[in-house]
């Protein structure tokens, strides 16, 4: 009897309690964005984008010959640290959940892991695009200030289209980092993986292309580094777009699919 009354009391309480609304994706994105900035390391990693862009711009003004003070030079100088920092930001946004074991809380509050991974990808790309815009602005400022100091002509030798391509190239690099983070779920492993991909593989592939004719013909199709680096040189031909698509499927989409599938199914400890 007693048990019955208690149970009835509770079920009544449960019934009067309104069904909570599902968690919207926008809220998860907001939370994930916050998580990218709310630790000291996260904050400084983000800030380092601005800092390295400023350093690179200053270096160009100080050391580049007057004739080279063009927007392209500034953009190229700023681009180098970006290609390293952006993928690391993407990697850590994923792997820190596992290395710090905060995934336990994240995935109990949002049991649909796919939604969390979507939110993380959207945040990483969003932060990436925003950082690139900031970096371009710093570069543009450097171009104006630099040429004013030297008294040389102000040259804008990158079109809006160029900027779009460069942005796309950087986002693809960032997504490679994201993919490696999802696949490895381990910060050190994913970062090493990214450096192997971006620094070691191109050397091997270029050697192959230099000495093996058959590889030179297929390089565009199988070397994502190569095909995406074409974006830095301006407009792509139809074939080059096809190269980018096919090699991206091999190096980015396929492993990312495997990685996400593993994240959805794996045990979180």
């Amino acid at each position: 009897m007693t048990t019955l009354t208690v149970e009835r009391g509770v079920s009544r309480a449960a019934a009067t309690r309104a069904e909570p609304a599902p968690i919207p994706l926008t809220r998860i994105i907001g939370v994930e964005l916050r998580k990218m900035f709310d630790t000291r390391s996260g904050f400084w990693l983000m800030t380092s984008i601005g800092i390295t862009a400023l350093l690179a711009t200053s270096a160009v003004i100080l050391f580049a010959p007057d004739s080279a003070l063009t927007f392209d030079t500034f953009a190229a100088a700023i681009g180098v640290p970006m290609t390293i920092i952006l993928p690391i930001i993407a990697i850590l946004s994923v792997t820190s959940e596992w290395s710090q074991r905060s995934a336990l809380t994240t995935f109990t509050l949002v049991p649909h892991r796919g939604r969390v991974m979507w939110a993380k990808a959207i945040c990483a790309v969003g932060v990436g695009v925003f950082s690139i815009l900031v970096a371009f602005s710093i570069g543009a400022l450097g171009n104006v200030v630099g040429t004013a100091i030297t008294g040389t002509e102000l040259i804008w030798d990158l079109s809006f289209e160029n900027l779009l391509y460069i942005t796309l190239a950087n986002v693809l690099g960032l997504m490679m980092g994201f993919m490696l983070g999802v696949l490895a779920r381990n910060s050190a492993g994913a970062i090493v993986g990214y450096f192997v991909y971006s620094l070691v593989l191109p050397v091997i592939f270029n050697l192959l292309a230099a000495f093996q004719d058959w590889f030179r013909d297929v390089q565009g199709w199988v070397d994502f580094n190569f095909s995406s680096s074409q974006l830095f040189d301006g407009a792509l031909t139809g074939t080059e777009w096809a190269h980018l698509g096919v090699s991206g499927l091999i190096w980015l989409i396929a492993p990312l699919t495997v990685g996400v599938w593993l994240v959805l199914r794996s045990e979180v400890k």
Partner: protein
Amino acid sequence: MITIESLTKRYGRFAAVDDVTFTASPGRVTGFLGPNGAGKSTTMRVMVGLTPPTAGEVTINGRQYADLPNPGFEVGVLLDASAQHAGRTGREILTIAQRTMGLPKLRVEEMLDRVSLTENEAGRRVRIYSLGMRQRLGIATALIGEPQVLILDEPANGLDPAGIRWMRDLLRSYADQGGTVLLSSHLLHEIEVIADDLVLIGNGRIVAKGTKAELLQAAGTVVRSAAPATLSASLEAAGIANTMTPDGSVRTTADPQRVGQVALAAGVALTELRSADGAGLEEMFLELTAESQREGAAA
């Protein structure tokens, strides 16, 4: 209400959880008891969807965990107090939970207050937190959505005696208000004080379950006399199996009333007669889980 039905989790050929079935009811504190590696944590991870089960099902208030629209409102979970980002402050970790659930900002300060983390402590990074402080923070995260179900894995770990008392009172009042509380422990005494129901697990299998009163009763009677041998013999004569322990007491599974009657009839003066309570339960716990005890039954 948590319902676990025929839950099995295998790693290769090893069954970490083997056909586990039990219910944690509203208004009651259910103690989930077992030695280290018995399968308690695995069972709890399956409950909240962190580990996919090999077979069986867990429902919380009649629904699978993944089907809860905003789980933090319905289930408070603390599986491992150490699993928090060391670089975040305590307040930040609570804020993330508050934002994910869509709760008012005010709740963060309320919860910090409720688990007695000071303003100063809340502003520090979790890296320097003691285990007790992490437990308090974990409890705050579990409670912030005012859930009706609590799932806590070894919540008393690292708490000082005052903290354990505080935790006990908190869980008691939660259950008294109609909440469902499931907490695990490998320490019998810790659970015995607070739990209404007990589930004993060893080697991935449930070895005993029931209300604490039932299990204590099943634990039998302890009786002492100046003449234990006579007492033992007269119990034997009355058909009551018993054992004499080295410390001079006699133990039996019969209830105290029956033992008292036999002693009276035999004219044996008793110095002590009581139900075995904790001591008996502990013996049962060690015995039932002997195979999974690293130290063996002797411990």
